[in-house]
């Protein structure tokens, strides 16, 4: 029982430890690159969202201003938006047919 | 910024007009002086007023009262505040001027028209409206001012972003 609790605590602490190993700057950089790559993929699918580019720009501006917490949040937001645009594209490959006038 | 430029230009206009008039005799003096007064006579102060009463006072030196002989034609809902077609006409005698004011615009006076004898008391134009507002038409007839007003709804403003 006691061992189990300790194990659980250790497990819970793990991700925190991993995050601590990365500086906020690195965290931002990783998130930003991921977001950019995802948005690039959306571009290849010819369906980027303007808000994604806006979020990326805002993230970069926050990072340049040294606010990495904010920058990280915005980069993550940009990635979520880029992902959503890809999901939309995939869905609309067939979903459009339901909207056709008939 | 451009004021000095345009005022000096105006003064130049007036001077040339007067110089020409002196040479051409008294009749011409009156005609040309009138022309010069028109070109220079843009009522800057009237166009800066924030209420209809103040604009009328500045422009005409008097106040107006509503009259069913002034007809104001404006849309219920403007398709776009940037271009609102507005027409004013009147069956009053001896109309000498028609002005159109937009109550909610930053400056109420939008346009004013001089109606000499022989010109009909009717004018149509297109105005900008910042938001939903009362539009007031003021007509000068026989030295007195009469008005009509109507609310025009603006859902897309004419002042842009």
């Amino acid at each position, binding site marked *: 029982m006691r061992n189990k609790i300790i194990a659980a605590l250790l497990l819970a602490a793990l991700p925190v430890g991993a995050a601590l190993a990365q500086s906020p700057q690195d965290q931002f950089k990783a998130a930003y690159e991921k977001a950019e790559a995802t948005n690039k993929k959306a571009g290849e699918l010819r369906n980027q969202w303007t808000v994604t580019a806006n979020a990326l720009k805002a993230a970069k501006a926050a990072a340049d201003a040294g606010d990495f917490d904010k920058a990280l949040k915005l980069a993550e937001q940009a990635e979520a938006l880029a992902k959503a645009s890809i999901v939309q594209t995939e869905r609309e490959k067939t979903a459009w047919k339901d909207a056709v006038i008939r | 910024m451009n004021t000095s430029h345009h005022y000096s230009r105006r003064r130049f206009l007036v001077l040339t007009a007067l110089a020409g008039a002196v040479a051409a005799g008294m009749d011409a003096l009156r005609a040309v002086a009138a022309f010069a007064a028109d070109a220079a*006579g843009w009522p800057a102060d009237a166009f800066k007023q924030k209420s209809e009463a103040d604009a009328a006072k500045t422009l005409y030196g008097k106040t107006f009262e509503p009259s069913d002989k002034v007809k104001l034609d404006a849309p219920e809902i403007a398709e776009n505040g940037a*271009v609102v077609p507005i027409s004013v006409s009147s069956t009053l005698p001896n109309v000498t001027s028609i002005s159109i004011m937009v109550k909610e615009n930053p400056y109420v006076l*939008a*346009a004013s*028209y001089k109606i000499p004898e022989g010109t009909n008391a009717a004018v149509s*134009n297109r105005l*900008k409206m910042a938001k939903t507002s009362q539009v007031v038409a003021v007509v000068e007839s026989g030295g007195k001012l009469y008005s009509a007003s109507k609310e025009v709804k603006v859902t897309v403003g004419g002042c842009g972003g």
Partner: protein
Amino acid sequence: MASSIRVRATASGETTEVQALIQHPMDSGFVKNSKGELIPPHHIETVQFETGGKVVFTALWGPAVSKDPYVKFSFKGGKKGDDLKISWVDNKGASDSMTAKIQ
């Protein structure tokens, strides 16, 4: 260069109807450009219509007159072939004029 003024003047019976359209930005001074800076006011102040040596109509315009402004009025007299002169002056001192034939 094409004129900044387009006019249609039509005589029918006793009256001549005049419609004019003038190409002008009519910047109100309240609108910002893409950089967020206010575009300074730039608008026509006076427009004058003359025929037969007589001024038949004068417009005094503020910044609330629409871009590429339009005005319509009518006067008694005027016949086909008569000259109608239109001239405008704006708040920067620019001006233009043209003479049209009444149709």
